[in-house]
């Protein structure tokens, strides 16, 4: 009878237990027996007892008392005991346990054992759970084994070295020479281990990376050999020869070719060959192609190769296999910033993937769709995104809503569309939107002055349908309070007007106030709205008075306070009521406390770059848009911008036509001769002069003139200006960005200032230019202006 039947007996008994309690009982008995056996002297059954314990451990029961037994078994001269001992060490001991140090010596001895199978046990265990000290101790041993042993041991030593380098990066230097020589091996296992080791070394040490760049031709040859070789039964997987090794070589080539032209050139042909010849009908081939695409996109490949790679991704996108589509979208996400147009071509397929049943695919499609939004496709893409929102899985809703809001803010073709979109989102998924949505929407509504009537009608309709979505109800209440008179007038151009009486409107608000679904904040909104209506309606002011006085004794402190104050407004300060409750002015988007998603809104200090909120390129008001765009063009000489909104196609065509118009204007506005000019900046031969001209009571034109007294032209001149918060600034297009040498020409830029609050005017100007191939950037603050200023 083979002794291991006892282990299988025990497993059978445990599996036969009908309840959890019965199982626990069996296991407790067995563990007691095992503990007893451990305490006894060697009786030839130790390995089986440990194996039993390991099974029990896998079921989730504590097995720490077996740790010392592992140590003892590893030290045993018998192979079967060592085998189970090492297995136990890998399962029960990790570097955090003290007992793990005790096996260091055994491992050391076993690394020099005469049997390669014992050596391999030690290597495997060391690579699995070796602590940093163990690695330092045993590194020389591993280095020896890397050089002089058979391929069975070499490959294990290589992966052991990989583990050591991960744990103790300084050991990388020790292994580098051996790793280099391993590349000339023929055995695939050793080669694979060598490539993994070299990858690890290169990732951690830039000098080693330089060194191994010289190995690129060798790697290319190796890879070519694999791709072109005929059928090899030992390594063949679905027609691909050793895809595991191919993928690792491609990954190493990626690291070596990154940011290096020579290395990238050396691998161009190979990558093209792999990309065209690899059969992707099975997963193995697709895996190789995938890695190839990743490598092509990451190194400095020529454009033809990049196109080939994107086409492969496009093909993957149409594949029936969900995994392949997922992979394709993950890769496209990585390149959507750099190869935006190429990815745009596949927008249709990506949008179709939004309708896929699978959650992973949906998520990828959502990310990619949001990245592909541009001014050109905003309308159609938003339709798809809203459709997606209505059926998307709950874990993606918050992300979807915030993505939709960002896209709408950046590319809304009209204010009405913007408002409609936000309302649609609130109706569909109002519970998953961010808190800032309500104030943002309110701010948007106030700026869309001609749409107030339309908006309040729409919101009223939404309110009487459903009051469960808090964000929507809050905005609706606010609008009704503010624009209730437009609602009651019963006429609207943009949409079918509702015919409501004052009572109907007050009923709606009261429903919100009384409903248990309304949150305290919402009720606050409703109460304030009711109060505001007292100045906008004519007949039912008494009803409002009574509502307000009832809430004067509300349990909610916030509501109570509001009601009491409104009551006071009715009683003692009735003469002020109309003034207090009149229409609010347009809310300025850049005012403090107005958080705006991820724009720079959060930390606006007093000097803020002029209307240069990088997210917002609202093109609805044409004149503002043109000036804002020119701000962007004027302020940023370089076409490359980190945020995609500025690099995409939309601002370009608009601004080029607008630029012409404004340059005509500049012809008139150019250097005004009369006012004095002050030199504000003089450095490196560049002189910047400032002239002011008072146009109106609060408005002023400032002209900046730049001249160059050096021998070489100054290029790339850009001027940026910042003013105190209450001052409005508008920068016109500069006359150029090159200042000819020797003072032969000049560049002028006009800045329009409006200082309604008549604060003391300061202006900070940042000047950037390139002079004799070096880029200079300086900031100068002007605190006092020539006499024509205030």
């Amino acid at each position, binding site marked *: 009878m*083979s002794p291991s039947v006892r282990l*299988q007996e025990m*497993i*059978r008994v445990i*599996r036969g237990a009908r309840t959890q309690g019965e199982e626990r009982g069996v296991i407790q008995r067995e563990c007691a027996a095992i503990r007893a056996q451990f305490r006894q002297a060697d009786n*030839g059954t130790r390995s089986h007892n440990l*194996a039993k314990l*390991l*099974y029990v451990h*896998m*079921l*989730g029961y504590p097995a720490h008392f077996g740790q010392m037994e592992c140590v003892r078994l590893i030290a045993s001269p*018998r*192979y*079967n005991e060592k*085998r*189970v001992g090492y*297995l136990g060490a890998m*399962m029960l001991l*990790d*570097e955090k346990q003290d007992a793990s140090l005790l096996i260091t010596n055994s491992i050391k001895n076993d690394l020099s054992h005469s*049997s390669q*199978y014992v050596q391999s046990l030690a*290597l*495997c265990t060391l690579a*699995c*759970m070796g602590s940093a000290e163990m690695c330092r101790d045993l590194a020389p041993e591993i280095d020896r084994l890397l050089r002089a042993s058979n391929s069975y041991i070499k*490959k*294990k030593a290589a*992966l*052991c070295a*990989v*583990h050591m380098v991960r744990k103790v990066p300084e050991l990388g230097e020790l292994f580098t020479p051996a790793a280099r020589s391993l590349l000339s091996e023929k055995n*695939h*296992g050793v080669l*694979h*281990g060598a490539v993994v080791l070299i990858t690890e070394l290169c990732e951690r040490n830039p000098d080693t990376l330089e060194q191994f760049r010289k190995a690129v031709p060798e790697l290319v040859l190796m890879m070519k050999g694999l791709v072109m070789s005929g059928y090899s039964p*030992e*390594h063949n*997987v679905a027609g691909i020869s*050793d895809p*595991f*090794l191919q*993928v690792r070589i491609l*990954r190493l080539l990626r690291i070596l070719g990154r940011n290096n032209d020579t290395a990238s050139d050396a691998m161009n042909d190979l990558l093209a060959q792999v990309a065209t010849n690899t059969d992707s009908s099975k*997963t*193995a081939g697709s*895996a190789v192609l*995938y*890695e190839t695409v990743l490598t092509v996109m990451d190194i400095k490949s020529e454009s033809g190769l990049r196109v080939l790679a994107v086409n492969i991704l496009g093909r993957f996108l149409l594949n029936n296999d*969900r*995994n*392949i589509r*997922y*992979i394709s979208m993950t890769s496209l996400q990585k390149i959507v910033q750099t190869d935006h147009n190429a990815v745009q071509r596949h927008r249709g397929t990506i949008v179709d993937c939004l309708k896929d*049943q*699978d*959650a*992973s*695919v949906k998520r990828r499609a959502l990310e990619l769709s949001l990245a592909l939004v541009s001014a050109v496709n905003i309308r159609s893409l938003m339709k798809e995104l809203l459709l997606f929102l209505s059926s998307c899985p709950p874990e993606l809703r918050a992300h979807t809503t915030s993505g939709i809001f960002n896209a709408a803010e950046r590319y809304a073709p009209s204010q009405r569309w913007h408002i409609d979109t936000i309302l649609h989102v609130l109706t569909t998924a109002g519970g998953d939107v961010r808190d800032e949505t309500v104030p943002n929407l309110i701010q948007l509504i106030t700026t869309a002055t001609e749409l107030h009537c339309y908006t309040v009608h729409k919101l009223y309709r939404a309110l009487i349908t459903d009051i469960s979505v808090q964000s929507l109800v809050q905005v609706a209440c606010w609008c009704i309070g503010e624009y209730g008179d437009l609602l009651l007038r019963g006429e609207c151009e943009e949409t079918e007007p509702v015919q409501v009486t004052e009572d109907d409107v007050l009923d709606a608000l009261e429903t919100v106030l009384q409903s248990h679904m309304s949150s305290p904040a919402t009720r606050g909104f409703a109460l304030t709205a009711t109060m505001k209506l007292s100045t906008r309606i004519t007949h039912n002011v008494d009803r409002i008075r009574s509502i307000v006085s009832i809430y004067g004794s509300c349990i909610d402190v916030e509501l109570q306070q509001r009601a009491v104050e409104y009551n006071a407004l009715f009683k003692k300060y009735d003469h002020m009521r109309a003034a207090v409750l009149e229409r609010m002015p347009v809310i300025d988007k850049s005012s403090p406390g107005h958080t705006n998603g991820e724009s720079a809104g959060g930390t606006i200090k007093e000097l803020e770059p002029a209307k240069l909120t990088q997210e917002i390129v609202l093109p609805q008001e044409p004149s503002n848009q043109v000036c804002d765009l020119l701000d962007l063009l004027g302020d940023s000489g370089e076409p490359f911008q980190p945020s995609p909104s500025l690099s995409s196609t939309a601002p370009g065509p608009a601004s080029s036509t607008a630029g012409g118009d404004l340059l005509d204007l500049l012809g008139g506005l150019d250097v005004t001769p009369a006012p004095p000019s002050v030199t504000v900046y003089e450095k490196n031969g560049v002189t910047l002069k400032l002239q002011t001209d008072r146009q109106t009571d609060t408005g002023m034109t400032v002209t900046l003139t730049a001249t160059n007294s050096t021998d070489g032209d100054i290029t790339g001149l850009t001027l940026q200006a910042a003013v105190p918060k209450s001052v409005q600034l508008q920068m016109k297009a500069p006359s150029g960005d090159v200042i000819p040498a020797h003072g032969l020409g000049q560049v002028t830029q006009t800045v329009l200032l409006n200082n309604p609050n008549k604060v003391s005017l300061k202006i900070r100007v940042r000047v950037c230019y390139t002079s004799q191939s070096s880029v200079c950037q300086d900031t100068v603050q002007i605190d006092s202006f020539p006499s024509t200023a205030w």
Partner: protein
Amino acid sequence: MMHFLLLLSRQGKLRLQKWFTPVTEREKKKVIREMTLMVLACPPRSCNFLLWRDLKIVYKRYASLYFCCGLGDQDNELLTLEVLQRYVELLDQYFGNVCELDIIFNFEKAYFILDEFLVGGEILETSKTVVGIAMEEAETLQETMEEYMSKPTY
């Protein structure tokens, strides 16, 4: 590199666990629980790739067992599907028409086979035949020892 490899039964029982990074017992239990919930909840024919914490999870179902592994962000997911396929083939090669019961009753053999195929979270040997030979020779060595042990000493 692979961070862990788990074999889960359809009822959520753990049949094999291999951890390639140091993880406390408590954390291991947590990961196993979360993997079980995530992977067993996936409908059939869904995408085999999931995202969890900062790892990519690749899982594949073979008969009544779910093979589930956690990858680092540089790893190739499609290749990992091939790795799982290869491991199943190796088990099949060793046990002959492998089924879940084989892995339950001979779990230590499953570990030994795994150790000839994956080490430190990376692939050790890409050839099926080499792994097979290594297992056979190790078995022979073990049996020789056991025979020697069971012989009476004089």
